[in-house]
């Protein structure tokens, strides 16, 4: 035991913890540096021993999968060290996430930007699927962006291996707005197509700048999907009426072409979007096929990552807003590992609510500023 402890203590010395940048249900996130190279990192400290069943499943999953995955579009786990009752994950430091970028009104998206982000998302996802891992929590919040523009999949707290034949899986995964219909119908046997649906929703959101299928309850979510994409027929999706949660819908919605809503999108883009949002999961496009879709090869080329729009908002403000977001799932894990430079930029006081949030967030802002709110 002592040998292991000593080893951990030594390893811990490589990383310098700085300030706290976020807190979640089971973990606290700090910003930090690698002592040797001064590289910026984030340390996610997971408290162990407060759950009656021992080590938390989300923590286990995160560690298990991040340890094995190394890809430029998946967040990198640099190290793991532990003290007596703490598990510390050293992750690369990522500035912001896609959600912040989408919400930032001062940023303009070119079609090439959207194409670039989608390509990176698909690449990261394809790598996960190649390693037989389902992510099961894809949403813009969990797609973090680095300083050089690279997009990375993060938050593997709900991930799991592909199931062996005949094994049931839980259907309470993925945040409601990005959840595919088969999960809303409580399917217990599903596959990698659930992630593709989420990516399709994210694609749509990038084009619309607001969430595409935003239901306000689980029941309403199905209705929202049907309204947007038409009620599926037995022919379109064989067997879906036999899924556990299926009820005869009161209204049958017709299919409206995507073009009606996505007026500015190219035909290629809509084609790919349509293939991601196919009802029958087996017919949904796979990540690898998506990467080979003509949309990506067509003009314009995907933007170079360094040119992608970047958001300047502070994460402290975000943390306060997080609690108010309606779509936070019960299953969602702690905040992702993203932070901004505290206090390095003075942000103009724009709107009243941001001012309020800022005064709360001020508590967490450790750069000593003497100004008054």
């Amino acid at each position, binding site marked *: 035991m002592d040998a292991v402890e000593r*080893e951990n203590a030594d*390893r811990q010395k*490589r990383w310098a913890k700085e300030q706290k940048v976020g807190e979640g249900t089971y973990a606290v996130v700090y910003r930090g540096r690698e002592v*040797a190279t001064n590289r910026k990192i984030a340390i996610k400290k997971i408290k162990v021993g407060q759950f009656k069943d021992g080590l938390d499943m989300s923590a286990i999953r995160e560690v298990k999968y991040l340890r094995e995955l190394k*890809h*430029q579009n998946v967040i*990198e786990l*640099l*190290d793991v060290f532990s003290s007596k009752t703490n598990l510390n994950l050293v992750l690369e430091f990522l500035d912001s996430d896609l959600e912040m970028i989408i919400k930032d009104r*001062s*940023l*303009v998206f*070119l079609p*090439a930007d959207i194409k670039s982000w989608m390509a990176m998302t698909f*690449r990261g996802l394809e*790598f996960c*699927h*190649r390693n*037989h891992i389902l992510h099961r929590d894809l949403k813009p919040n969990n797609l973090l962006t680095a300083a050089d523009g690279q997009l990375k999949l993060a938050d593997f707290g709900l991930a799991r291996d*592909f*199931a*062996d*034949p*005949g094994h049931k899986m839980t259907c309470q995964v993925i945040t409601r707005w990005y959840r595919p219909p*088969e999960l809303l119908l409580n*399917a*217990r*046997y*599903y*596959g*990698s197509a659930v992630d593709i649906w989420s990516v399709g929703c994210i694609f749509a959101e990038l084009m*619309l*700048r*607001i969430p595409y299928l935003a239901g306000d309850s689980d029941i309403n979510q199905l209705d929202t999907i049907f309204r947007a994409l038409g009620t599926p*027929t037995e*022919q379109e*999706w*064989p067997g879906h009426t*036999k*899924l556990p949660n299926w009820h005869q819908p009161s209204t049958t919605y017709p299919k409206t072409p995507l073009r009606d809503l996505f007026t500015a999108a190219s035909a290629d883009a809509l084609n790919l979007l349509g293939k991601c949002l196919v009802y*029958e*999961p*087996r017919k*949904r496009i796979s990540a*690898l096929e998506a*990467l080979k879709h003509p949309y*990506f*090869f067509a003009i*314009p*080329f*995907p933007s*170079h990552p*360094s*040119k992608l*729009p970047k958001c300047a908002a502070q994460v402290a403000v975000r943390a306060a807003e997080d609690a108010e977001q309606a779509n936070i799932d019960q299953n969602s894990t702690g905040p992702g590992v993203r932070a901004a430079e505290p206090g390095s930029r003075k942000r*103009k006081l*724009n*709107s009243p*609510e*941001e001012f309020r949030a800022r005064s709360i967030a001020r508590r967490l802002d450790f750069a000593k500023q003497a100004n008054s709110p």
Partner: protein
Amino acid sequence: MSSYGGWLRGKTVKKGAASSSSVNTRSSTPHVQSTSTTIYGGGIKDPSGRVTEYFSMEDQCPVCKSDRYLNPKLRLLVSTCYHKMHVLSILLILMRVLTGVFRCESCIDRLFTLGPAPCPICSKVLRKLAFSPQTFEDLEVEKEVAIRRRLAKEFNKRLEDFDDLRDYNDYLQEVEDIAFNLINNIDVPQTEAKIQAYKAANAALTAANIQREEAYALALKEQEDFDRREREARAAQLVQEQEQERLEREREQNELISKLETSGKDAKKLVAKARLSQQKRQSARASEKSVLSGGMGFGADYAKLLKARTNKAKTSVPDEPHVPLQDDWYGYEDLYVLRPSYDDIFSEAVRKDREGIMRAGGYMVEEAWNRALRSAMAGLELEPLVGLQTEEPPLSAVDAGGDVIMA
């Protein structure tokens, strides 16, 4: 030419409306404007009025052989037996009347003014009213479209009205047969009888379907109206806001001026203060707007931002063409072949899947097979380690992947 453009925009014929454009000389592109006062019924009506009449330089009346060169305002109409004839423009008719000279009247007028008469080409009896303007180049197509339109009114069942796909397809086949017969003039009386029989048998269902379609069209229209109204409201609001801003700015200017005049303070300071407060107000309003407008309120700066962004995109690092996979990982894919199905004990449950639940949920047993095949190949080539490893590498050692090398 505006008149040319006007034609292209396909103005619909209005009864009694005279030609709005000037008469062109023969050398310019002729245009066909429906100048005739008679509305010719029948044929293919396009309610939105966007479909224009078909015309070409080669048009020639088969009866009197006058063509567009001699008669720029030649208008060829199509009869129900799908033969073309032309009508003279009203101008020439007037001329004729005025000069009292009986020129070549329009063949249609000539032949049919006195009542029904046989078509000079195929001898079928026609009325004047039976003529209509042509929409498609190919008369065959014209005929077919008209027939199908008519049939669609009668035969409007959908998949849901049938018990299974097979029945629906049979029904569709029947309809196609009827259409084919009518188009090619095969067994016309029998086919007509069939249509009548079907009509009688399914009157109720057909009526119900018609109602449903109407309701749907109505709902769609309402939705469109609603959208339009929203858009208009938003635009109006925008205009209003801009107006407000303008007024505010004016007021500020006036205030500033009066202050400069009356007070003794330093002019520069006053101006600066005014500007500051102006800016504050502006940014407050801008963010308010974006917060309130929810969806895509970018405000007036959007165009500017877009321009800035596009410029930036052009000047810095060039975009590279897309490469599907950019990593160097090798997954042993070339060492095995995933076949579409395996007779495999573990996937019994999946194969049985009585209710199709597994399939509907999207479980793909191929993914599990792929994983098994891959793991059968992974690491097969590795030679075992030999000998004592040198002492544990110091903790600061990091392997290629940036991972700490542990014990």
